């Protein structure tokens, strides 16, 4: 068994201890089991985006020519200002493609009894 010393927020620790007490009280290893479960859940999640996906790029394009490129829109806007390019004259694209059609959900508004009219 590995032994890890960690420090956590006081309030979080209080909540964890209260929850353990509420569901059957403290026993030997109760706290370790909670953290083990938390770590298993954390490991089962997908890694955060920047670890698996290439960084996103925004490009200002005129015709086929890329006039400016940056990793955020803010940086791209600054770059266009620096190059004295009117943003209205360029098409801004993202390296993350818009995939096909958007699915749009549907909302119900007023609910009436079905009937005439």
């Amino acid at each position: 068994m590995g032994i890890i010393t960690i420090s956590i927020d006081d309030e979080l620790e209080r909540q964890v201890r209260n929850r353990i007490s509420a569901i059957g009280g403290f026993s030997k290893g109760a706290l370790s089991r909670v953290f083990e479960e938390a770590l298993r859940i954390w490991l089962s999640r997908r890694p955060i985006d920047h670890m698996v996906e290439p960084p996103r790029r925004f490009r200002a394009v005129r015709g086929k020519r890329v006039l400016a490129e940056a990793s955020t829109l803010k940086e791209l806007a600054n770059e266009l200002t620096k190059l004295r390019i009117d943003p209205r004259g360029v098409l801004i694209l993202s390296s993350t493609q818009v995939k096909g059609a958007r699915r749009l959900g549907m909302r119900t508004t007023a609910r009436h009894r079905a009937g005439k009219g």
Partner: protein
Amino acid sequence: MLERVRKRMSWPIADHTAYIPIKVHNTVFGKTFPDGDELLLAVLDTGFSGFVLVPPSIFNGIRLNEMKLLRTRGILADGRSLRLRGAYGSISIPELDFFEDGLIETAPGILETIIGMEALRKLRLELDGCSDALKAYKC
């Protein structure tokens, strides 16, 4: 230094609808809606695969209509198709210090602001039907 406690917010679910208070930005033109401390209640719609859909008045209000627009298509649950137009902008959730760039879309007849799955990729959300609350924090 890593932030030890992540900002976490909880918003009430009203009328069976979960709302997220946001601001919409035309980051290129430096325009924001709404101004000042006000926030726009965006409907959380997990059935919308896009980023954010706004009414034309907001889209035009932050001058996204002045940019070169991208044309996309929306498919409704009943199979009907809707023409959308969009431009890259940003949304922020001030209460979470959250800021994200993405394609902001609109179409004639859109009356509400809808926040879709693409905007939620870097958020962890808990829909708590038991206490009618939507809880959120950044990944």
